[in-house]
C-alpha cells in the first residue's frame, strides 16, 4: 500500500504528560512524526496538537484508533480527508552581503514574506506559507547560503465549519 502525508488535528486535555503519551505511542509503535505543533486553544482545558505523519491507509487507521484510545485524547481529525487551510511559520537566516542583498529582497517581496532582522552579513526572514511554497522559497535561497532555519511545523484547520 502506498504511503501518504496526513495532517492530524488532535484535541487533548491540557494536562502534563499528554504530549509524552502521544509521542510515546508513535515511537513505541513505529509510526512517523514529520512535524508536530502543540499549543493552547480558546478552551481553557483543551490543547490542540497538529501533527504531520506519513502512513499507508491501514497504518493511518491504526494511528487514529490508537490516538483515540488514549484517555486524554478528545478528538482526532485527519484534515487531509477534506478541505483545509494549512500554514507554517518559518524564520530563515540567510547570508546577505551587498552583492546579493537586493536580489534577496526581491525574492522576499515576490513571496510577500517579511524581513524581521538585518545585520552586516545576514538577513532574517519571516515566512508564513503553505508547506509547498515554503519549500519552493527555501530551494530558491539555498544557493545564497542559509545560516539557520527554524520552523513551527504545520498548523491547519478545516475550511468552513
Amino acid at each position: 500500500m502506498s504511503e501518504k502525508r496526513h495532517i492530524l488535528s488532535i484535541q487533548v486535555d491540557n494536562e502534563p504528560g499528554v504530549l509524552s503519551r502521544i509521542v510515546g505511542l508513535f515511537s513505541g509503535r513505529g509510526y512517523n512524526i514529520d512535524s508536530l505543533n502543540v499549543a493552547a486553544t480558546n478552551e481553557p482545558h483543551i490543547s490542540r496538537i497538529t501533527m504531520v505523519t506519513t502512513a499507508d491507509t491501514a497504518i493511518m487507521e491504526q494511528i487514529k484508533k490508537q490516538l483515540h484510545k488514549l484517555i486524554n485524547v478528545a478528538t482526532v481529525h485527519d484534515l487531509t480527508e477534506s478541505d483545509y487551510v494549512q500554514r507554517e511559520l518559518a524564520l530563515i537566516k540567510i547570508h546577505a552581503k551587498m552583492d546579493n542583498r537586493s536580489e534577496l529582497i526581491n525574492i522576499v517581496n515576490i513571496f510577500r514574506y517579511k524581513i524581521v532582522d538585518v545585520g552586516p552579513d545576514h538577513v532574517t526572514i519571516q515566512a508564513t506559507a503553505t508547506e509547498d511554497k515554503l519549500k519552493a522559497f527555501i530551494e530558491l535561497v539555498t544557493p545564497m547560503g542559509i545560516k539557520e532555519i527554524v520552523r513551527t511545523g504545520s498548523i491547519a484547520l478545516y475550511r468552513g465549519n
Partner: protein
Amino acid sequence: MSAKELTGTQILMKVLKEEGVDTIFGYPGGAVIDIYDELANTDIKHLLVRHEQGAVHAADGFARASGRTGVCFATSGPGATNTVTGIATAYLDSIPIVIITGQVPTQLIGNDAFQEVDIVGITRPCTKHNYLVKDINSLERILREAFFLARTGRPGPILVDIPKNIQTMKATFNGPQEIVLKTYKPTYKPNVKQLSKVAGLIKNAKRPLIFSGGGAVLSGGSEALTKLAKTMNIPVTSTLMGLGGFPGTDDLWLGMPGMHGTFRANMAISQCDLMLAIGVRFDDRVTGRTDDFAPNATIVQIDIDPTSIHKNIEVAVPIVGDCKIAVEKLNELLAKEEGPEEAPDRSEWANKIKTWKETCPLAYDQKDIIKPQYVVDTFFKMTKGEAIVTTEVGQNQMWAAQYYHFNRPNQFITSGGLGTMGFGLPAAIGAQMACPDALVVDVAGDGSIQMNIQEMATAVQYNLPIKIIILNNRYLGMVRQWQDLFFDKRYSSTTLDHNPDFVKLAEAFGAKGLRATKPEEVESVLKEGLEYKGTVIMEFVVDREENVYPMVPAGKAITDMLLV
C-alpha cells in the same frame, strides 16, 4: 454540617472500601509507610508478598479468578520498578488492576531524591492509564477514575502514584460521585444492523466456525457464546486466553488453535467459510502467516477495542462492542430471523471435523519415563476438570492448555500476551484469595518456578493451600525445543543442571514437598499432594527432551504443522 476533611491516606482507604476492595497485595517502604499505617485501621486483608512483582501478579490472579479489580501497593523507586513486569503482564491480557505506588514528596520530584523514579513515565506504555497525584484535592477523583477505567471498556491496569506529602495532607471527602470522563466513552452497544447481517451469514454458512478469545471471557460472555454455538451447531476454537469460555469437554470443542494448537482447530480455521471472531486480537502466535489465515472465510470480528479490528487481519464485518452484549443480541436475532428456504448442508463440514479429530488427536506415549503430558492428563482426570489452574510459561503452559480441559471461564489463569515466567505461583496466591474453597494449582516448569519462588513464603504464611506441579525437565524446555528444531540441537544456555532440590526447598519454606520419578508414582504423588491441606510442591521428573506438538514454526501457515 461542614464538609468532612480527611487525610490522603484516609481518602485512599475510603475509596478502596467503597470500591469493595477486601484484599490487597503489597510491600511497604518509606514512601508508603503512611498508607500502611492507615491500612492498619481498616479490615482490609493485606498479604505481604516477598517481591513487588509477586504483588502485581497476585492482584492479577485475584482479578482473573474473581472477575473483580485486583489491588496492590508498592513503595517508590525500587518498589515501583519491581512492579513493571507485573503491570505489563496485566496490560497485555487486559486485566483490571489498580497499582498504588508511593512517590517522594512533591517538592523533591525531579531532584533525583532518594528512591525517586518516574514510575508514571516508565509505565505509560504498559498501563491503560496512569496518574501522578500532584494536588490533594484531586486524589479522590483520581482514585475513583482509576477503578472506573480499570474495569470498563477494554479492562487494564491503572497506576496511581501518590507522593508522600500528599498522603498526609487533608482535603474534603466528597463521597461517591458520577464519573465524567469526556474523552473516554467505550462503545458497549454493537451496531444492530451489522449484527443482523451476521445472523444472515450464519444461517447461510456451510462451514461456520467460532473463534473466541479473552474478550469473550472478560466480558462475561461465555454463556451467550455457548448458547450461540449449541443452538446454531457451530464448532468452537478458543485462544489461550479464551480457554474455558466454551466447555472444553463439549463435542463442538476443537481445542486451541495456533502455534501449539490442535490439528483440527488449525484445519478448521483454514477451511471454514464463516469465522465469528469474538474477543480476539489475532496474535501472531495464533495466526501464523497472516496471508494464509482463514483464506476461505468471511470474517466477522466483535471487539470492544476498535484498535483490535483491522490490526493484523482484514475483516469483512467489523463490530465494535461488548462481546457479551453483542452475542446475546445476535442470539436474539437468530431466534427471530427466518433462515434460507433450504438450510445449507453442513454434514460435509461435520464429517471433516470428525475425521480431523480422529486422525490427529493430541497424544503421548507413556513408557518408562514420566511424560509431562501424562502428569497433566492424570491431574485433569483426578480433579474432574474442576481445579483453577495457573501456569508458568513454556512447555508446561502449553501442556496445561492442551491436556487440562476447562469447562468454566476464569478457571485457566495464564500469562498469554506477555508470556511472563514467574507468573503462576503469585497468580495462584491471588486466585486462592479470591476463591478460598477452590483447588488452585500452578502447573510450573523448573525454570519458571524459580523466578518468583520467594512467594512460597507468602503462601505458607497465609495458609494458602495452593498446589504446585513442577514438570521438571532440567531445561528451559520451550527454548530448548526451538534449539532442537531450528538450531541443530545446540542447547546454548538452556540446561538447568543446578536446580535446587525442590522437595527440600518446599520443606525449607514450611510447605510439603513430594517427588515422583517413575510413571507408577505419578498418581500417588498427585493424590497425596492434591489432598494435602496446605501449600505443597509436587515435583515430577519428566522426559527431558519431550517436545510440544503440534508445532507451527514461527512465520509459517498454521496448516504447516509439525505433528510429532
